[in-house]
């Protein structure tokens, strides 16, 4: 019996085999989608670049030679240099770390928060639902960047505060999605059955309700990653995110703005990085949705 047969067996012998089988099927379906694989490759590339940034970057990201300022792309500086003579490629590479940190922290804070609020509201209904969803609506009614701006203004500029601000602005969407999902199976008999077994409300929500909302939330988070990157870049551009000399992509574009007509590469190179990484998350998220949520499979 090959490993593949073992994984695809209809009659797994252990819990472990059953779980691995489910994971293998998911991975196999995902691998059949070429666009999702492109997205996956981009994300993998981002992870590797971020992990090995100090070894990959040819120059220091923060120190430059003023004599070398604003050099166009060449063999010595593949992406050129900025107004302080720093190598832009090195800055973009180190910026990958900052971007990844922001994206992961926001996802880790906002997705569980949204999931919790949404499932609790959906499961309990009544006044709990009204209060929680009222709160969610207030947050949803404000544009994400404006809300994040307000929080950063209150908390002070910096990466940590930018993360908190973006997370606060991002969770309501997940709460809405999770609640809608809960409402579709709230009356299902498997929930009556588990209630009849004497399970606590906490147990029902955490072990029986949340897992069913998980896939739509994961898909949504992946698709939102692009938006999170753009919001972080927007905050950086406005000078409220990462502070100099940190090589945050949005902040780099902001600095390059003054030279955009004559030295186009200063603003363009980090812009490329943002576009490519956002695209990667979008493609991967789309592929994930097709696999995890066959009901909403995109046509074609």
């Amino acid at each position, binding site marked *: 019996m090959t490993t593949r047969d073992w994984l695809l067996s*209809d*009659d797994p012998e252990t819990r472990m085999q*059953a779980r691995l089988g489910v994971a293998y099927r998911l991975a196999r379906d995902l691998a059949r989608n070429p666009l999702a694989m492109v997205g996956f490759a981009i994300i993998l590339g981002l992870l590797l670049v971020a992990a090995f940034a100090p070894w990959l970057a040819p120059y220091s990201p923060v120190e430059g030679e003023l004599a070398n300022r604003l050099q166009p792309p060449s063999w010595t500086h593949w992406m050129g240099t900025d107004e302080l003579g720093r190598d832009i490629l090195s800055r973009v590479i180190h910026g990958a770390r900052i971007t990844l940190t922001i994206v992961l922290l926001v996802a880790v804070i906002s997705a569980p928060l949204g999931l919790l609020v949404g499932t609790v509201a959906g499961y309990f209904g009544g006044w709990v639902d009204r209060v929680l969803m009222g709160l969610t609506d207030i947050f949803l009614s404000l544009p994400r960047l404006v809300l994040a701006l307000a929080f950063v203004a209150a908390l002070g500029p910096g990466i940590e505060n930018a993360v908190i601000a973006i997370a606060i602005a991002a969770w309501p969407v997940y709460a809405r999605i999770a609640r809608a999902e809960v409402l579709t199976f709230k009356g299902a008999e*498997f929930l009556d*059955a588990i209630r009849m077994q004497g399970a606590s409300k906490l147990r029902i929500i955490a072990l029986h309700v949340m897992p069913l909302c998980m896939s739509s939330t994961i898909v949504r988070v992946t698709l939102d990653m692009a938006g999170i990157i753009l919001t972080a870049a927007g905050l950086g551009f406005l000078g409220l995110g990462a502070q100099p000399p940190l090589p945050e992509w949005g902040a780099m574009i902001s600095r390059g703005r003054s030279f955009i007509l004559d030295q186009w590469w200063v603003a363009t190179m980090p812009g490329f990085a943002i576009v490519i990484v956002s695209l990667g998350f979008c493609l991967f998220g789309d592929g994930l949705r097709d696999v995890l949520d066959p009901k909403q499979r995109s046509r074609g």
Partner: protein
Amino acid sequence: MIRVEDLSVRFGDTQVLHDVSFEVAAGESFALVGESGSGKSTILKALAGQVPVAGGSLALGDAAGAMTAKARARQVQMVFQDPYGSLHPRRTIDDTLSEPLLIHGLPDRDTRVLAMLDAVGLPRRFRFRLPHQLSGGQRQRVAIARALMLDPPVLLLDEPTSALDVSVQAEILNLLKSLREEKGLTFLLVTHDLPVVSFLCDRLAILKAGRIVEMAGVEALRAGQFASPYGRELFDRTVHG
């Protein structure tokens, strides 16, 4: 084992049950029969603690009076009508059967789950399958196994075969009958299917618009001799289609 006295249930302004009273002895199998909307399923839900009781009293199992949800779970469990909706779609059979043991902190989960699979006639190799890998009849066996995991003396059956193919219905009914004899279970069955009643039950109550119009033994059903006009009407409709 089950005592229901003057039970009333209302949803908002509509009263769905009017002073329903009946008793089921230990080991007996009792059926509630009636058309849709007669309130028969509501009686089950009231006994299961899923709808609030407006008046009257309920006593279940060995304990009397009010019970916590956990204590009630040890006394009574339910098998639902739709085996496609009553199993969690993302949990394996093993998860579903282990869950009641985990909730009640019972030991020897592996042996108990395997013993229960044997008892309901499911192959052990199905243990780690997901519900969508099973047929309707197999799922209903899982649902029955789940209901028996805590060894409750009382089993509530909400039309347990009406969503199944005719050939599978007989298998499930035989399984229920033999489990009842083996474990000395008390059944409260809700159905509109009179042949199921005559196969599985000792006595029945006929409900109409939230009231019991007649109680009869199963011999009266077999002979088609109901006392009430509504009972005869129901019987005629079943016999003559």
